[in-house]
């Protein structure tokens, strides 16, 4: 089960375009029969508003350490062989790849499950903030703007995207 690939660090933050081919290549492994990857792309709409571009703010020290921890725990828990994850920071255009997760495992089930767990946790646990810019000239921090000055229920704030 433990990977013999030397992939540390496995979580990265980059201000450059994500090089998907090179990431996939880093996971080549003759003991793996399955490779699953996930890409999160910049979409042109969110909650009924027309989105023209995005900007991500990242607190790197904790994003990297928490990301590393998530990958470590997921590989242990699911029993996949190896994984890598990269998240963008800075500005992205529509269609841009904002996040990439790749997992190799002996069989496909572990790779699918580990990929899902890693991306799900990256979205809610890493100190990363997404600012959307809209066609009408407005902009807003996703999940934040409804946290106005007054306390109210935040149950609806979980971003299902």
């Amino acid at each position: 089960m433990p990977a013999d690939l030397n992939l540390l660090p496995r979580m990265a933050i980059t201000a450059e375009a994500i090089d998907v081919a090179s990431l996939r290549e880093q996971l080549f492994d003759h003991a793996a029969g399955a490779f699953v990857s996930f890409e999160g792309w910049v979409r042109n709409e969110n909650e009924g508003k027309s989105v023209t571009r995005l900007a991500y703010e990242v607190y790197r020290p904790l994003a990297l350490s928490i990301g590393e921890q998530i990958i470590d725990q997921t590989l242990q828990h699911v029993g996949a062989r190896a994984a890598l994850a990269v998240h963008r920071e800075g500005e992205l255009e529509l269609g841009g790849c904002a996040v990439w997760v790749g997992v190799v495992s002996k069989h496909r089930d572990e790779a699918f499950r580990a990929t899902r767990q890693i991306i799900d946790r990256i979205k809610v646990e890493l100190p990363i903030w997404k600012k959307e810019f809209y066609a009408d000239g407005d902009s807003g921090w996703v999940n934040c703007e409804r946290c106005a000055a007054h306390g109210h229920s935040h149950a609806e704030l979980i971003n299902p995207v």
Partner: protein
Amino acid sequence: MKSVQVQYFALFRERAGMSHERVETDATTLLELFNQLQHRHGTADPHGHCKVALNDVMAEWQQPFADGDTVLFFPPVAGG
């Protein structure tokens, strides 16, 4: 009084008009400090959506802090 470095991110940074500041405080917990700084970050209740870190380690709102610590206030995150 304790002197701590406070860092604001994303919406908090924009509302505060600054990314960090040195704060003198008599607060004992991170929650008390957050509440004392409401005029900066603009949020009344951080529970369930905002997070706090102390010296680059995720922390609990009820946790105490010490003179010289660095406190990071995180508005709701949205990766991916």
